[in-house]
Each structure stands twice: as C-alpha cells, then as structure tokens.
C-alpha cells in the first residue's frame, strides 16, 4: 500500500515571494539605521535604541495575548488593558510586602522579589482572565459589536474595582536596588532595567515561537487560527484550548503590567487604557492574529516612539499613528495577515 502512495508535490515558493514574506523583518534594522542617521550621535542613539527595544518588548508581551486570542476565536478584548493594570497593582502590593528583599543589596534577593511579584501578578490576572472569559466574553461569541461593548464594560468595572481595592491615588512603584541606575558603555548610558526588559521579552518571544511551532498545543493553536471548525471536527475541544489561550494572554498582560509599572515607576488605574492605545496600534500593524507580526510591530513602535520623543517630543504619539497608516497603506491587513477578513 504505502509504496504505491502518491508522493506529495511540494511547490517551491518563488524567490521573489519569499523575499516579500521576509520583507517586514527588515523594517526594524532599517528603522534603526534611519534613526542613527537622524540622531547623528551614536551614544544617544544606542541609549534610545535600547530604550525603544525595551519598550517594544513590553508592548509585545501585552499585545501577544490579545492577538492570539483574536486569531483563535475572533474575539477582541477591549478589556485587555484591565489585566495590565491589575497585574501592575498586584505586583506593587507584592513588592511592598517584600520590601526587605527589594532593599537588600543582594542581587539574588532583588530578582527573587521581582520574580515572586511577577508570578503573583500572572496568577491573579490569569484567574481574572478565566472569570472574564466565562462571565463576560462567553455569552457573546461571534458578535463583534456586543464583544466590543461588553469588554469595554468589563474594563470600566475592573478599573473601578481597582479604585475600590487600592484607592484612587497613583502609586509609586520603585525598582529594586539591583535594577536601579545604569551601565555606562563608552558614552552611552543604558538603564539596567531596560536590558532586563529586553532579555525577558526576547526570551518570551522565542519561547512562544517554540511552543507555537514545535509542540502539539502550538500546532492546535495555529490550526485553530487557520480553521477552527475543522479542528473541532477532528475532535479537539477548541473552546477549552481557547480558554487556556485566553488565560495565558491575560497572565502575559499581567506580566507586562508589572514590567511597565517598574519601567514607568508610577501606576494608576487608568494605565491599562492608556497603554491599550499602543497595544492596538501594534496589533493592527502586525496583522490581527500574528505573533511574529506583533513582535515586529512592537519593535517598530517602540523604536519610533523613542526616536521621535528625542527628535521632536510633541509628535511622539502622532508618529506611531503615522506608522500605522503607512503600514496599512502598504499592507491593508497588517504586516502578516493571518486571519482572513470575514
């Protein structure tokens, strides 16, 4: 039987199309090079580039969950920002409890405290994601209009609950000893925390890529994005898979929240809805549902925001909008369109 099987014909993609697929990846170094020319001074360019990459990594962490959730279940969660804020506040509380650890000169103790804070925040936001999915999102599958409204309502309620629990004032979230200050390389000063943020973000991206490309659950997620009904017909519970992805996405938003809180050093209940603007821009640029696109989009937005903040501070946010418009003119579905427009 098997020897008579017809050999599958694998079509080779022409070189031109392969290049076209790889093209968006080149955007990041191109943007960095343009930034170097515009700024002129290599030292400040290095500082800004690291800052931009750190910011991009954090946005990526927050946006990745959103984009996969959309790709898999066609659900857009406007309340995603609430997880970011809750994560930051939980992280703040844990770090405050562990004040002895964060103030101690030992790097190990500092990092453990941050790790504990991150884990606690991820646990809380993951559980919150579970509740959010069950109570708020589940009744409105397949209805975009209601999804937007209901998740927006969830955001309002969550923000108000933060006020109830943590009070209305903005809180100061200080970094532990080891992550304060900066390294000086040549003339460029690079904040230590930004390097840590780049490290965590990169590790997360590679880990996520690995899970999506090389594990069974990743395979299911990718298949679900492509054609959910077919996966369901083959006997997999897409709903449960989706719940796991939703919880993971929420937990990642919580992680992003802690990191963003440590980056900005002040947290407010509204930080979620503020950061969501950047997250949405990144998700749109990357193409809804695409993790790679989201990563590239986050890098572009982070770098561009930092370069323009240095060159022309007043147009920083406008520049990211301009970037979004430019990308959409070039590729109306974003850099890597995964989900076909329905």
């Amino acid at each position, binding site marked *: 039987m098997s020897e008579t099987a017809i050999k599958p014909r694998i079509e080779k993609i022409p070189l031109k199309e392969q290049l076209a697929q790889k093209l968006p990846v080149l955007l990041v170094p191109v943007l960095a090079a343009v930034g170097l020319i515009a700024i002129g001074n290599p030292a400040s360019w290095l500082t800004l580039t690291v800052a931009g990459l750190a910011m991009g990594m954090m946005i990526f962490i927050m946006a990745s969950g959103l984009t996969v959730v*959309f790709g898999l279940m066609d659900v*857009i969660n*406007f309340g995603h920002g609430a997880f970011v804020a809750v994560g930051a506040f939980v992280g703040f509380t844990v770090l405050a409890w562990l004040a002895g650890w964060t103030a101690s000169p030992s790097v190990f103790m500092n990092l453990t405290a941050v790790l504990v804070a991150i884990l606690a925040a991820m646990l809380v936001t993951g559980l919150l994601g579970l509740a959010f999915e069950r109570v*708020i999102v589940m*009744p*409105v599958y397949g209805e*975009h*209009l*209601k999804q*937007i*409204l*209901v998740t*927006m*309502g*969830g955001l*309002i*309620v969550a923000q*108000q*609950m933060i*006020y*109830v629990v943590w009070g*209305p004032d903005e809180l100061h979230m200080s970094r532990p000893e080891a992550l304060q200050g900066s390294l000086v390389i040549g003339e460029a000063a690079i904040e230590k925390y930004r390097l840590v943020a780049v490290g965590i973000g990169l590790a997360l991206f590679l880990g996520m890529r690995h899970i999506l490309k090389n594990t069974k659950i990743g395979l299911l997620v990718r298949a679900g994005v492509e054609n959910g009904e077919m996966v369901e017909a083959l006997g997999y519970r897409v709903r449960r898979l989706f719940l796991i992805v939703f919880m993971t996405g929420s937990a990642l938003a919580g992680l992003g929240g802690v990191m963003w809180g440590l980056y900005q050093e002040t947290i407010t209940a509204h930080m979620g*809805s*503020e950061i*969501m*603007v950047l997250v*949405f*821009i990144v*998700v*749109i640029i990357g193409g*809804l549902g695409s993790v790679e696109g989201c990563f590239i989009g986050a890098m572009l937005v982070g770098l561009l925001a930092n370069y323009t903040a240095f060159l022309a501070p*007043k147009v920083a*946010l*406008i520049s*990211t*909008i301009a970037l*979004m*418009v430019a990308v*959409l003119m070039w590729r*109306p*579905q974003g850099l890597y369109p995964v989900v076909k*427009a*329905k």
Partner: protein
Amino acid sequence: MLTRLLSGDTPRSGLLTALLLIVLISLAFAPFLFPGTKSLETAARICIFIVLVASYDLLLGYAGIVSFAHTMFFGIGAYGTALALSTTGPSYGALVWGTAAGAGVAALFALAIGLFSLRVKAIFFAMVTLAVASAFAVLVSQMSWLTGGEDGLNYKIPRELTPAFKLIKAKVFDVSINGKILAYYLVFFAAVILFLVMLRIVNSPFGRTLKAVRDNAFRAEAIGYRVVWYRTTATVLSAVMAALAGSLLAIWLRYTGPATTLSMEIMIDILLMVVIGGMGTLYGAVLGATLFILAQTYLHYLMGVAAEATSAVPVVSTLVAPERWLLWLGVLFILSVYFFPTGIVGRLRAGRA
C-alpha cells in the same frame, strides 16, 4: 403634522410617549420649573448630550459601527467655535463661521478615517478610531499656543447670551429673563432641530439601507448597495452632528478644554448612555442621556447617603461610596448589553406589543 415632524417614527408606546413628553416639557420650561444655576446647567448638559448621544446612535445603533472617536468630533466642533470666538472677538459672525468650520473639519476627518479603515472590519474601525482619538487628544493638549493646552480656552460670547444682558426688566414667574436664559433656549431649540433632523435621516431610505447594511452587509452588497459608501456617509453625518453638539457646548460653557470635550471618560459616558437608553432608536438617546446625566449629578448624593448608612460595614461602604457610581453603571451596562440589547426604549416598545 406631528407625525410628519417626527418623520413617521412615533414612540409607539404609551409609557415611552409619556416619558418623552416629561423630558421635553421639563427641558422646555427648565428655567421656570427648576430655577437655580445648577439645575439650568444640568438641563443644558442634557440637551447637548441628547444630540451627541443621538449622533453616536446613528453610527452604533443604525450603522452597527463602533467608533471611539466620537469625542474627537465633539471636540473639533467645540474647538472650532471656541477658536473663532477667542481670536476674532465675540460676534455672531465668528460664532457661525467657527461652528461651520468645526463641522467641516469633523466631516473631513471622518471621511478620511472612514475611507481608510471601514473597508476591513468593524473591529478594525474600533481600534483605529481609539488610537486616532487618543493621539488627537494628546496633540490638542500639547499645542498650547493654539488650544490653550490642558487649561483650555476661555472666551467671550456675544453679549446678548450672557447673564449681564437683561431682555425685559420685569420678572416672569420670579425668574429674571437674562442672557443666560436666552443662551439656554438657543441650546434647547438647536438641540430639538438637530434631533428632528437626525430622526429624518434615520427614517429616510438612506436610514433603511443603513439598517440593512448593519444586519447583513454581505447581502446588502449583493443587492447592489455600496456598503462602504453607506458606512462612510453615516460616519460623516454622525461626525458633523457631534461637532455641532460640541459647538453648542462651547457656546453654553464659554470655555473649551480637553477635559470637557475630548477625554476618554466622556466617550465611555456616551457609550453607556446609548446602550442603556437603547441602541437603534433615537428616542433611546433622549432617555439614556437624561437618566445618565441626572444620575451623574444627583446619584452622588444618594450614594453618599447609602455610604453613610452602611459605614459600619467595611467593604459595602467603599462599594457604595459616591465616587464609585461608575462601577454600578458599568455593571448595569454589561447586564443591559446581555439582557436588553435594545435598552429602555426597546423594552417599553416590546411591552406594548
């Protein structure tokens, strides 16, 4: 005649008619029924928000498009009037051309956003408008040489519309007829006219097609309607209406700033008003805006009483503290999206059938 004025879209429910009449009469005679500055402020706010919310309903309820840029258009209208009045002085000419310019700019912006993002998906539009609107708000607060930044603009309006002007010496029902009352009636009649115009729009063939596009865009396209054109036109119309509402606010407050026109809080308020009042029925905007603003103004007081009463119970008293009223409205909002997607008006109409 009355049916014609309402474009054939009568309330179709006894209770709804009664409620609408109460709102109309209370607003029409507000200066005499509820004397005092605070209640007049509230009445004018209600008039302006009825127009604003109805224009949003045109988009959300009739065209099925979620936009987060509605306050941007509101703000453009307000800043148009405010800039014209503050740069060329308090004349009626400036007032008119400022308002017209605001509406024109809002229409252009809406056209650009619509053409560029309505082709794809409703969700896409929501995200793009959210991003654009917040960028606009930041831009306005940073261009302080033009817009006064965070402080906003204070300016004079024509003298006839200020409290210093007395129309007649005598008092009517113990209320002196000054310019403030004239300004109120300017806002009131403008709101009534704009509302009737919107009622005309949604009950025209255009409005019907819009509903068809909302319910099944694919089918509407197949029948031969150009869906993108209809959606974009609806966006532009609603933007112009929002800009006009913004101009009314600018005239009434004699102040325009980011917090009163552009903030995300107002956007969320509008969303709550539309959904609680009833999507897809302009009358819902009337009830939603009225209830919401009354709640905003007076619920604080009630919740203060509740918080006093429960101050012994630790958690409950924080939950019902006056500052937390939005929490309860948020819960009400979610519940109404699930259980009463047609809002108060839909309920009332269904109750009759």
